[in-house]
């Protein structure tokens, strides 16, 4: 070995004094839009899981996170990112429905154990949580799904203003599929729907043009789809994840689209109910509204014999006698009801159940179910409210449905800010338009515009049709001159509830107004009429706060043979009635099996 060979290894030592060519830690800062580790604004995130669904690498899983509660509109889950799988493509950020997810430009994280390279962004604190730089969803106009809902064709206000014909035309196949295509299938809406309908599943069926599958999904939880597809309060749409950065899915109209496509004579074939087993148990249901109809439908499928007793001459309850025809045509109610009847449920009309009849039902049937709703209008009880031309909205709506002629003067004031108030406002506006060629309705409510309980579109459409909606006033008195109503005195309402959350309106007596009227309609809520319950039973039934009958999770009262559901228990709205009836059917079946 030569001297040179011996010295060569030592030459390497010379490198120690040279400037290194490698980068030192901390390394170079990422570019401003560099895609590095995730950040998540966990208060904005709703745990819809779209980030997980789009991730090709399965790098994201949805996990419960500390301090995040599962509630309406929020699954309580948050994404956990596994950096053994993530490729930093950023699709999860781009698809995020709320815009909560982003990437920081931080790109170095050194640890020995690969299993440690995962965390829940926003929950597990990281040094890059506060960094501004990094990849964000490019806004505006950059979305993976349509932000605007497919608009629904409606008759123009001038065209519909003097007619009770249904004015919402319904989606065509192309429109329905286009709207369905906006759904991200997260399923956040299902928990909020009182009936827990399979919403993502039926929307998917529309997308796949499989109407029969859509029908099966609908009837799994809702036997009144034609009705609900038109007038449901669509609480599902309030929590739709797509609604955070755009219009929520038009879930209600999509449901209507499915039901509208199927003719009545196909129902049994599609829903596989041509033959159903019938046992010997008998159930009497009082009131042919949604709660009873729904209970009867599911009880029939369980093999029970149902008889519904209805006071009026047609079925539907508040759906027929409370909701005007322009929103819910009667033939659509008939379509849903006829199918339920075809499965063996008998509806006996024009039968008023009183205490004696009630006891008779108790003797002759295994179970009695009451779903008699809220049909007694509440009065404001202000001075003058006992005048003969002060009406209850619920009475007028029923009389309009029955074809009776109601009083229609040129000037009407409606008191109330809910959907029923809008229904009577718009019905009277139509009748005035027919009679006088012009509209003269003023509707006023305690609630300010922003917190009116009526659906937004109801208020907008009522205005389009010429009614004046003037919210935020508290009624004081009705002025009467020579026995005739002159109008309504109101004062400004500042707030409705006090600090403890109790109904206790605070009024500014100095801020006054006067609405001229020949007739006043009160529409401030309804109460239940349970005068048919015999006194000896009333003593045995447990009542809860505000006089409601106490029921368990399956709508069984403290008397085991008596069940109750619908508006008198929960709501008021159709979808709660349907959900109650469904749950009660399970409860009744369980009860009968134990008997």
């Amino acid at each position, binding site marked *: 070995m030569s001297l040179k060979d011996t010295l060569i290894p030592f030459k390497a030592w010379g490198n120690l004094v040279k400037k290194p060519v490698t980068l030192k830690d901390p390394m170079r800062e990422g570019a401003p839009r560099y895609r590095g580790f995730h950040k998540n604004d966990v208060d904005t995130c709703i745990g819809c899981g779209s980030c997980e669904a789009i991730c090709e690498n399965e790098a994201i899983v949805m*996990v419960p996170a500390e301090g995040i509660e599962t509630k309406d509109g929020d*699954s309580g889950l948050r994404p956990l990112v596994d950096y053994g799988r993530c490729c930093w493509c950023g699709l999860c950020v781009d698809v995020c429905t709320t815009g909560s997810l982003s990437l920081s430009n931080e790109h170095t994280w050194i640890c020995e154990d690969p299993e440690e390279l995962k965390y829940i962004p926003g929950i597990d604190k990281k040094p890059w949580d506060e960094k501004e730089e990094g990849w964000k969803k490019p806004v505006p106009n950059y979305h993976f799904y349509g932000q605007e809902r497919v608009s629904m064709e409606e008759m123009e206000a001038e065209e519909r203003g003097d007619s009770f014909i249904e004015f919402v035309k319904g989606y065509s196949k192309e429109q329905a599929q286009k709207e369905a295509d906006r759904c991200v299938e997260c399923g956040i809406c299902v928990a909020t729907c009182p009936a827990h309908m399979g919403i993502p599943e039926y929307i998917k069926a529309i997308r796949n043009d499989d109407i029969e599958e859509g029908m099966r999904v609908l009837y799994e939880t809702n036997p009144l789809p034609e009705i609900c597809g038109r007038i449901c309060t669509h609480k599902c749409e309030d929590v739709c994840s797509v609604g955070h950065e755009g219009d929520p899915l038009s879930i209600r109209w999509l449901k209507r689209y499915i039901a509208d496509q199927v003719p009545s004579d196909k129902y049994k074939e599609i829903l596989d109910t041509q033959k159903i087993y019938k046992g010997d148990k008998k159930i009497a249901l009082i009131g042919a509204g949604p709660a009873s109809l729904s209970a009867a439908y599911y009880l029939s499928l369980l093999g029970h014999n149902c008889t519904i007793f209805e006071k009026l001459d047609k079925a539907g309850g508040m759906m027929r006698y409370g909701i005007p025809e322009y929103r819910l045509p009667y033939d659509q109610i008939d379509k849903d009801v006829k199918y339920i009847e075809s499965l063996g449920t008998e509806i006996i009309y024009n039968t008023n159940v009183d205490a004696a009849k009630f006891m008779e039902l108790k003797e002759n049937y295994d179970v009695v179910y009451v779903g008699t709703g809220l049909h007694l209008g509440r009065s404001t009880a202000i001075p003058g409210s006992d005048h003969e031309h002060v009406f209850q909205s619920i009475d007028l709506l029923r009389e309009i449905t029955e074809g009776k002629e109601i009083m229609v003067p040129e000037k009407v004031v409606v008191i109330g800010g809910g959907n029923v108030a809008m229904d009577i406002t718009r019905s009277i506006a139509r009748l005035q338009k027919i009679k006088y060629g012009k509209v003269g309705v003023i509707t006023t409510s305690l609630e300010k515009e922003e917190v009116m309980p009526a659906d937004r579109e109801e208020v907008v459409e009522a205005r389009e049709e010429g009614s004046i909606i003037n919210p935020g006033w508290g009624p004081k008195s009705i002025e009467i001159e020579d026995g005739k109503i002159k109008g309504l005195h109101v004062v400004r309402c500042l707030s409705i509830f006090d600090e403890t959350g109790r109904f206790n309106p605070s009024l500014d007596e100095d801020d006054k107004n006067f609405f001229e009227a020949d007739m006043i309609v009160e529409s401030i809520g309804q109460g239940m009429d349970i005068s048919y319950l015999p006194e000896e039973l009333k003593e045995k039934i447990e009542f809860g706060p505000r006089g409601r009958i106490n029921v368990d999770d399956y709508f069984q009262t403290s008397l085991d043979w008596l069940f109750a559901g619908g508006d008198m228990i929960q709501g008021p709205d159709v979808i709660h009635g349907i959900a109650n009836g469904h749950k009660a059917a*399970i409860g009744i079946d369980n009860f009968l099996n134990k008997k």
Partner: protein
Amino acid sequence: MKQVLEKLSASFEIEDIVYQRDDLTFLSAKKENLINLITHLRDIEGFSHFVLLSCVDWIEDDKFQLTYFLNKPEEKYDLGIRCMIDRKEASMDSAHHLWKQIATYQREIKEMFGVDFPGSPGVDEPFILEGWDNIPPMRRDFDTKQYSADTFFPRERPKTNDPKEYMKEQMHPGEWGEYRKEKK
């Protein structure tokens, strides 16, 4: 630049001209005209600099898209020339005689997408995938996940929760479908 492209569009059957920016334009050309077009652009119109060549797999349309990027140094102007070719037996005329370095891009595309460039130097030699025994990995019908599972050691995915099912568990357990199934 508009004038130049309009002048060329007839003779080279140029389509879909998109003036993306003041210094960037995209256009489409047919496979049979492409080499002539870029030759003309290089020799007559001053697009002397070749920037890059890329490929996209439009599997639904059964096409590959090749995009040639050229640059005109005097005007600092970029031109992207798109060319759709058949996905089955995918092949394109080589352009290595125009710019020597194109051979490297063509070799990469051959390996990653399986688009052949007959006559291009070294086009059949492995680019980075030595010993590759599957369909070209950038083709969209290549199943990356399956390949990974077959080739590498498995790594279990953490447990996940479906938002809908989780909310049901938390907020409304038990439902009709299950009840009826039990009954049947």
